[in-house]
Structure formats: structure tokens, C-alpha cells
């Protein structure tokens, strides 16, 4: 499962593009080996040249925003992203910054409240004139921020796996959209577990609903299986007794779950208590990363499967290095989940795009991103930014162990992002 050698995916003949590609690869390598390597390469073009849109850029500093919930119910999930983005930015700074400028972060608290997210995004863009925002976690917060971004022409790097159906000029999605997460996982479970019947359960909001819609269609038309139950639990609900009894009654081959937040903990604890475990049932979930495992308890998950693009246990030198750096900064206990890793990719992709564009201006950066020729050597392996603002990545299936880590039992080929799937 070694990461592939960086390849240049575009046939771009422009010399400067090729140069910046190499620069990116070198800069990334630089952080891994010694911090100074990148700075020698990064030239410092004058501010007037890299900033024509009144961004907060000086000759030696560039300001970016960070917008997550550090309070409220979503702080549980977003903490990892906050940490990962900080780590990435620190590493970029240690390797000489972006276009010769150090990155300074202004952190704002979305407080798990969507209007607050919109307000803070506006503040970052209109008062602080940040060049990019790394942030948001829930779809609701992204939807709230979106009009602000489009009006003020801001740039958001969004780390969460999400439902798709969106492609804004002003957002780069570093998590997977639904088709990337759903189809390959269903293929795997149908093939290895000979599954024919599925029980779908999710929390009641747009991401699980959209995901389950895709899953149902795929199960019925491609896998020729049967969905024997589909259910949505109110966000935050903690009682799953009745749902679990329904599952017993239907006896599905696979329980396909996308339960989130605090409900997730109750769901798995109650499954285990009801005698539904990895030993006697196949459960594939889309919403459990190492972050959630910490709250659920590994012993309640043993033998269940998650479909993610990244697991902390991924056995590559690049990932081991990343895990080491992350733990050194945030403590040995800090878990690294899929979204955390995707959040880590955000600043690196932004850096690569800025350097390719030779400018911090949103329009130029987006144009560079839309060439489809940006790729980075991330902890999960090489990822490629496609022209539709999503990443081309792999999907992995992890089987949870009682210590809260996953054994990766399957790795897919690269999957093209397809936020607007036809026929679904």
C-alpha cells in the first residue's frame, strides 16, 4: 500500500506550471526532511504583483482565516480539523511560507450555529481580507457561508466528506463527495460478504438522506440486492432500542449506517448491548472515523467496517511521518480521522495553487486549481485536484479493532469525483 510516485497528470506545456509542480513536491518533501529546503526555492515576488484584490498581504506575511466551531455541539467533531490545519500551516511556514510569505491565521469560532458561521465568514473576508478560509464541517455551515463567499469572492477549503450536489467556484472540497464514498464500498461488501439485503440507517439531515438515496439506487439497480429498511433518527436522539428491534426483525445481510454526532455513540453502545457485534453481523458505516471511535469506545466497534479515504493506521512512510508530527504537536492521545487528514490537505492544496498561479488573487488561484494539474503528496497518498473542485482519491475499508484503530482490508483504485451523478 505504498503511495505512488508523483506523476504529472496534465499535459500542460507551460514551463512555469511544470516548475511550480516540482516546487510543490519539493516543498512537501522539504517539510519532511528539513524545514529550510523549501525556503531556498520560494522566490518572493512583489506584493503589488501577487495581490491585486486588496487581500491582507504584505511583503512577508499573508493572512488566512480559520472558521470552525470550537464551542457548541459541533466542537466535538471540528477540533481535529482545527488542529490539522494549524499543523499544515506551521509546516508550510517552517518551509518558507507561500510565495515567500509567512502565513498568519485568524481563527474564528462558528459556535455550531449557522448564522454565526455566515457572520464570521463575512468578518474574515470583509474586515480581515483573508486570502483563504479553511473551515466549516457540517453541510449546513457550508451552505450558510456559501452566499458570503460568492458575494465577496472568497475561497473556502472544506474538509468533510459530504453529499455532493454542489460545485461552487469559491469552494475546494478536500473530503469525498457521496459517490466516491458509497459505490466502491457497496461493491466491496456485496462481493466479499455476498450481501443481498441491506438495512439503511442515518441521522435525519441532508448528507445521510442523499447518501442513502445513492446507496438504495445502486443496491437495487447495480447490485440487484434489496433494501429491507430505511430509517432516519432525529439528530441528537439517543434511543435506538426500537430501531435495533426492527433490524432484528428484518435480518439484513448488511447494516449500512450514517449516524452522526452524539447519536453515534448511543447507536453503537446499544448495538453492542443488544448483542449485535462484528462477530455476527456485517455493519458498514460512513460516519465513523478515529475521532468518533474515541467517544464510542473501540470495544463497541470491533469487527465493524468504515468506508473512508483515510485511516490513521495507513502503513506508508508518508503517513507515519504525518502521524508522528501530529502526535508530537497535539499529544499522543489525539486521534486522526478522515476529516482531520482532509483538513490537513487544505492548506497544502492552497499553497500549491497559489504558487502555480503566482498570485493570491482568488480568481487566479481558482483558475490554477481548475486546470486539473494540481496534486499533492498527502498522508493518504497522492491526491489530484480535478477541475470540478473535488479531489480524485481512493476509498478504503477499515475493520475496527478494540484499540480504536482500523485494519485496512480494502483499497480501491482512484475514483473520479462526480458531485452531480446522472440517474440518481
Amino acid at each position, binding site marked *: 500500500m505504498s503511495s505512488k510516485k508523483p506523476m504529472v497528470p496534465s499535459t500542460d506545456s507551460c514551463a512555469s506550471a511544470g516548475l511550480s509542480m516540482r516546487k510543490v513536491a519539493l516543498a512537501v518533501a522539504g517539510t519532511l526532511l528539513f524545514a529550510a529546503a523549501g525556503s531556498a526555492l520560494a522566490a518572493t515576488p512583489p506584493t503589488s504583483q501577487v495581490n491585486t484584490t486588496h487581500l491582507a498581504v504584505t511583503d512577508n506575511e499573508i493572512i488566512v482565516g480559520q472558521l470552525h466551531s470550537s*464551542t457548541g455541539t459541533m466542537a466535538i467533531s471540528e477540533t481535529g480539523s482545527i488542529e490539522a490545519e494549524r499543523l499544515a500551516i506551521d509546516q508550510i511556514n517552517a518551509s518558507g511560507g507561500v510565495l515567500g510569505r509567512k502565513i498568519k491565521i485568524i481563527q*474564528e469560532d462558528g459556535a455550531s450555529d449557522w*448564522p454565526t458561521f455566515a457572520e464570521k465568514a*463575512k468578518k474574515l473576508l470583509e*474586515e480581515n481580507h483573508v486570502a483563504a478560509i479553511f473551515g466549516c464541517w457540517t453541510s449546513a455551515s457550508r451552505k*450558510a457561508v456559501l*452566499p458570503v463567499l460568492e458575494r465577496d469572492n472568497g475561497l473556502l477549503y472544506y474538509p468533510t466528506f459530504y453529499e455532493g450536489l454542489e460545485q461552487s467556484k469559491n469552494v475546494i472540497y478536500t473530503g469525498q463527495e457521496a459517490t466516491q464514498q458509497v459505490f466502491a464500498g457497496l461493491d466491496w461488501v456485496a462481493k466479499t460478504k455476498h450481501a443481498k439485503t441491506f438495512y439503511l440507517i442515518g441521522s435525519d439531515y*441532508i448528507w445521510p438522506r442523499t447518501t442513502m438515496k445513492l446507496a438504495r439506487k445502486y443496491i437495487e439497480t447495480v447490485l440487484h440486492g434489496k433494501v429491507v429498511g430505511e430509517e432516519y433518527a432525529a439528530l441528537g436522539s439517543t434511543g435506538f432500542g426500537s430501531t435495533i428491534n426492527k433490524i432484528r426483525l428484518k435480518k439484513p445481510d448488511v447494516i449500512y449506517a450514517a449516524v452522526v454526532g452524539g447519536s453515534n455513540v448511543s447507536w453503537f453502545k446499544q448495538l453492542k448491548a443488544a448483542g449485535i457485534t462484528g462477530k455476527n453481523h456485517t455493519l458498514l458505516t460512513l460516519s465513523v472515523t478515529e475521532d468518533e471511535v474515541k467517544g464510542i469506545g473501540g470495544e463497541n466497534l470491533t469487527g465493524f467496517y468504515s468506508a473512508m479515504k483515510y485511516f490513521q493506521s495507513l502503513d506508508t512512510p508518508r503517513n507515519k511521518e504525518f502521524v508522528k508530527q501530529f502526535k508530537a504537536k497535539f499529544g499522543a492521545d489525539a486521534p486522526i480521522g478522515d476529516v482531520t487528514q482532509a483538513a490537513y490537505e487544505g492548506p497544502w492544496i492552497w499553497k500549491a495553487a497559489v504558487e502555480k498561479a503566482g498570485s493570491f488573487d482568488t480568481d487566479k488561484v481558482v483558475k490554477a486549481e481548475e486546470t486539473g494539474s494540481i496534486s499533492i503528496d498527502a498522508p493518504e497518498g497522492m491526491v489530484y485536484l480535478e477541475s470540478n473542485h473535488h479531489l480524485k482519491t481512493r476509498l478504503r475499508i477499515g475493520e475496527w479493532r478494540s484499540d480504536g484503530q482500523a485494519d485496512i482490508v480494502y483499497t480501491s483504485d482512484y475514483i473520479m469525483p462526480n458531485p452531480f451523478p446522472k440517474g440518481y
Partner: protein
Amino acid sequence: MNTFYSKWLGGKKGVIELAVLAAFIFIVLPLWLDIFRLNMVGKYLTYAFAAVGLVMVWGYGGILSLGQGVFFGIGGYCMAMFLKLEASDPVSTARQTTPGIPDFMDWNQVTSLPLFWEPFHSLIFTLIAVIVVPGVIAYVIGAAMFKRRVSGVYFSIITQAIAAILTILVVGQQGMTGGINGITDLKTLHGWNINSNSAKYILYYVNGALLLGVIVLCKYVLSSKFGRLLLAMRDKEDRVRFSGYDVANFKIFTFSLGAAISAIGGAMFTLQVGFMSPSLIGIVPSIEMVIFAAIGGRMSLVGAVYGTWLVNYGKTAFSESFPSLWLFLMGALFIGVVMLFPNGLAGLYNSYLKERLEKLVLKFKQSGLFKKLNPVKTELQNEQ
């Protein structure tokens, strides 16, 4: 003229109060703040509608509603439905399976516009609905409760449960309501771009004017016989009842009035912020609205506006300067106000500042300058 002066504006004291508030909203804040911050204040001032409504319902009516967010939310959703329909014309939604319906419906496999959305194609209907729908809902809830003499804490907890139910319903029926994301991406009002800077200014002033209008209306209601009965009822409900008045009807009216006022705030919120979401109708925002009213002084209509502004300003300032500590400061603010200034800002003003200010004013009046400047008003005062 005289009735208008004394009843609607509340006499000299009332005029000064209103004038100061008007100056604060229309002159001080716009001069002090750039458009971004001003728009933010505009958002806070929409909550002030709910707080003013609570002053009527709670301060004067003695009924603590923990579901004011419900009405704020319904008002906001009515407006959002209209704006969303305008944003979902067949051209800009051509990518969808069913063009011409809001995007979130399409994502939820809804293929035609639900019936209750249809009338919201009309702006006139929407504007009426913003006030009437919450008013009627409040009437139904109020009639059911007050006729059965549900009161005090019981009423509060039932309204809280209603807020919980509405949140679950809105979140659960996402094909029709947009679910937890709410109704987002609202752009124009009859072709007028509500996200432009000029629109933000205009909306801010409209919002301020409406707020002042609502306060004047409330003053009128309070200065009437009804207002005096309301106070009597709050203090000795049984005596009012024994005097032959139907207490329940007064409560129902006040509750509906408070609901309609909150709903105007909700509609203005949608216009100024550009979306509406269930996070504004639940239990937490409803309690926050009570806190705004409490901090302003629960018996003071203008105090509610200052209270709302102050709490939200504090929230923003604290959370920008101390991202990880601001909850401590907010918590301390609530406890401090309740413990030390039970009558909120208005009480603070009455017990500390009022006398000094009055002395100052008196001095100013005795000086010849005032008489020269304002001969008519002085005469009026002498008459009184």
C-alpha cells in the same frame, strides 16, 4: 395631536427615549460602523423585535414564553419561502431533475412544489402571512392554554416543548423545509439584489424604522386601558377576573401581539442575512431572546433593544478576542445581570443615571440657552 403625543409616544419621557434610540440606530451606529458591522447590528436588531415582543408578553403580561423563537422562525421562513421561490426560476435551476422548484426539494426527490408553498409566489401574500400566520398560531396556542388557565412555569415549559416539536418537524420534513440546512442561497426580492451594499443599508434603515414603529405601537397599547388591565392582571390576576374581565382573552391578545412582532423580526432577519435555518427556532435561541429582554430590563421596550444589542455585541467581541473563553464571559454576564441588576439596563439607568441626568437637564433648562432654542416646548412644559 395631544393624544398622539401622550398615548403613542408616551409623553415627554417617551419622546426623549425614542429620540435617543432613533439617534442611536439611525445616526450613531451608521457613522461609527462600516457596512459589514452595520449589517451585523442589523441582524442583532432583528432579534430585538423578539425581545420587544417578550417585554410585552413577559414584562407586562407576566407570561414567560420560552418559544418566542418559534414565531421569529415562522416569520423568517415565510419570507424565506418567497425569496427561495424567486431564486428557483427554471433557468437557474435547469441542472435539476425537476427545474423550477427549490434546490433542496430536488435533492430530496420531491418532484412538484408542495401545495402550501404555492401562495408564497406572491409578495403581498407573503407579507400578510409573515404577521398573520404566527399571530394565528399564537392565538390557537394561547386560547388552548389560557382558557384552561395554564400559567407560570407550566406555560414556559410547554412553549419550550413546542419549540422542540417545531424544530424536529422542520428538520425532519427536509423535502419541504430544507431540513437542518434551512432555506439558503436567497438572492433577490422582486429582482432587487438583497446582497448588495446599498441594499444592506436600505434594509438596515427599514429594519430600524419598523423597530421604532413597533415600539410606538406597543407604547400605545400599554397606555390604553388595556395596558393598565394587563399590569393589574400580572399583579393580581384573580381580582381582575373577579371584576368581570375575561383574563384569558387579554393574555391571548398579548401573546399573539408578541408573536406577530417577533415574526416581523424573523422576516427582516431573512432579508438581511440571506437565509433562514432551524437553528433560529429552537430552544436555545428562544432562551437567548428572553435573556436579551432580561438584560435590557423586562419592563422597558427601548431597554430590550439596547439589551439585545449589548448581548450580541458582547458575544461577537468576546468571541473574536477570546475564542476559547467567551462562554465564560457570556455566562458571567447573564448571572451578573440577574444577581446584581434584576431590572436590567433600564433598572440600572433608573437607579444610577437618571437622577444625575435629570439634574443636568434641569441645569441646562435653567440656562437661558435652552429657552432661546426651544420656546414652544418650554411653554408646553409649564402648562403641565
